[in-house]
């Protein structure tokens, strides 16, 4: 069996987190790795520094999960989108695959889709493996 990917999920307290609590199991990805999502008050509060910290400490990928366009009360999701897009451009310059930073939107009632999306993200990141190179 291949190694389970190390993934950090930053999820919005108001939409994604209730969905996670409603989902039947907190385990995912071959039941080998447990997601301990980090709850934030808004996807707009996920600073790029936190994402880089996760990647520099061994995370294979980071998923930012927030409210869909039109559903965030603070428009923080639009800010999160711009930050993630710019961060992906920056990561390319470090030879780090931009797909390692995911951005997904979920509404409160989407617990079923949540699990699927996290699995898809984990699959994609597992394909890439850990971040590393010869001069690491």
């Amino acid at each position: 069996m291949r190694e389970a990917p190390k993934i950090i999920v930053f999820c919005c307290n108001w939409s994604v987190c209730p969905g996670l609590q409603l989902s039947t199991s907190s385990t995912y990805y071959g039941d080998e790795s447990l997601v301990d999502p980090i709850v934030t008050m808004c996807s707009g509060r996920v600073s790029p520094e936190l994402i880089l910290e996760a990647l520099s400490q061994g995370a294979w990928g980071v998923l930012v999960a927030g409210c869909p366009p039109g559903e965030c009360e603070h428009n923080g999701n639009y800010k999160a989108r711009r930050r993630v897009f710019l961060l992906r451009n920056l990561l390319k310059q470090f030879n780090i695959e931009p797909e390692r930073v995911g951005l997904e939107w979920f509404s409160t009632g989407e617990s079923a889709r949540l699990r699927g999306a996290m699995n898809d993200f984990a699959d994609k990141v597992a394909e890439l493996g850990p971040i590393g190179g010869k001069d690491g």
Partner: protein
Amino acid sequence: MAKPKVAFYWCASCGGCEEAVVDLAEDILEVVRAVDIVFWPVALDFKKKDVEQMADGELAVSFINGAIRTEEQEEMVKLLRRKSGLVIAFGSCAHIGGIPGLANFWNRETIFERVYKGVPTMDNPKGVLPQTKTIVDGQELTIPEFWNTVHTLDQVIPVDYYIPGCAPPPDLIMKAINAILEGKLPEKGAVLAPDKSLCDTCPLADSKPEKLMMKEIKRPYEVILDPEKCFLAQGVICLGPATRSGCGERCINAHMPCRGCFGPVKGVKDQGARVLSFVASILGIEGEEQMTDEEVQKLVDQIPDPAGLFYMYSLPSSLLRRKIMK
């Protein structure tokens, strides 16, 4: 009473930090009245063996500028650390990596290829690259190993205090020297400069709109700038919000945006990430609800080299530290 002994040393740097000491002008006379400068390779003829002969801790303070990228620099700073009561990282390169730190987008192999083979002015038909050992007429010659990665001083030896800047301004240097002489230093590890951001002390701060917004990004050469107006309000990226103050706003007063040489404000680990954060926050707020992913991508693609710009002075001290070479 014997005067405290002081050393100045340079590593991977341009010499500007040495110039900054000379820029103390007549104040340097006050400094030498109070201390004995016993090691300063750029100005005085003392040798490594003179330092080796000192007792451990005999030097009151070593001011070390430059980043660390060779075996020799590592050896010298470790020697100075052993002989010194206090080690002060002097200037941007020792503090956060500085301009030499941008070499962390390459490595030894790619730098040597470029410098000794690639540049048009290089005449090197045999493709000779520097070797740490060479035999010439039966004699072995050695030069220090050149590292793949440029390091900050505190990644190589423990550092007690930091004086930031490219180069540090004379008033901060004098304040630091006086604080040392009077024993009025803050907690260990402190950066001897104000804790405010440059934006807070910027002479253009009054022209900054309450809600900063950038519709599009321009580079300084693409636009005739209003010298009285905040750069960000004119669509030009300025690192002021994410950079420590204390520089005397030298670039701003010369009508150039901040490029971050004073490093991050207190408590921030990664200066470039903070720059990315605020740029993405204020870029394209107007009409953000209507924007498609493609339009947002176009918006951020206006910055051709985000890593080089956001980490212009701080790449070795960043969370990622260097590009991964594949």
